[in-house]
């Protein structure tokens, strides 16, 4: 791993992200009563987070070694870990358990497969 990221550029990124939080969370609370969300827009906004997160995590899990080629075999420890976490989620909604079980499976697959 390289040195931890820091510096002015990171400060700008953090301010930018903070603005994204502030703008989205206060948007309609501060807007005038005339402004309304159309049905289509509301539907699209509802699905935006799940789609974005899927677009982030699936390549992160399936490309092995990270960022290279598609690996759907048992020799991809991230896939094993994510499947284990997913199974845990189906069984229980406990997030800590999901992380623990997923990390355990990931670590075992990484060390022994």
């Amino acid at each position, binding site marked *: *791993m390289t040195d*931890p*990221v*820091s510096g002015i*550029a*990171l*400060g*700008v*990124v*953090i*301010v*930018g*992200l*903070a603005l*994204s*939080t502030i703008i*989205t*969370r*206060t*948007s*309609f*609370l501060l*807007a005038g*009563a005339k402004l*309304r*969300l159309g*049905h*289509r827009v509301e*539907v*699209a*906004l509802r*699905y*935006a*987070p*799940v*789609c*974005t*997160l*899927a*677009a*982030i*995590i*699936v*390549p992160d*899990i399936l490309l092995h070694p990270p*960022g290279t080629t*598609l690996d759907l075999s048992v020799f991809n420890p*991230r896939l094993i*870990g*994510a499947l284990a*976490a*997913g199974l845990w*989620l*189906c069984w229980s909604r406990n*997030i800590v358990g*999901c*992380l623990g079980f*997923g*990390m355990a499976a990931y670590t075992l697959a*990484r060390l022994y497969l």
Partner: protein
Amino acid sequence: MVKGGLAVPWAIAMSLLVYAGSAQLAALPLIVAGAPLWVIVATGLITNLRFVIYSAALRPHFADRPAAVRAALGFFMTDFTFTRFMRSVQEGSLPEQRDAWFAGVCANNWIIWQVSAMTGIIGASYVPIEWGLEFTGTLALVALVGPSLNARPAVVGAVVAAIVALLAFSLPFKLGLFCGAIAGITAATLADHWQQPPPPAKPEGA
């Protein structure tokens, strides 16, 4: 966060200022990979878009309160506090001082969140790098996405987003992420439209 590659003071600043778990987790790999500023902020913005709906839903309940109060309540709102508030609205158990009540719920949530975050940020420096702890970030996102896959359009959108993101992965500036997100949102919206026609109160184009 720290294991993702942020120096400790910056990770603390991020937790305090951004205060949006999913946006932070989504932005982290991009920061570490050195993605351009606009890509990182745009990613944070899309993951935060659900709060636009939340704030629209909250507005009628706080319309008579000063703008400063509305802004503060908005910033400290989270998935959990919003859901909690709406449940009380449904139950009709909301007190007259609903802004104070909501502020209390949000403050409680904020304290627990930040204490946990600080513990993690400081504790992570004592964990050996070989443990591969950065993968917990991805797993945390899996845990966030899982429960949202409870409706068919969401599943359609997530699958389309994942496939497009994989196909477009080699695009520069993490643009594959955006292609995937936009394709997924489009697919989910269409699937939602086919599954149930829009309510008659708001006709097409309204």
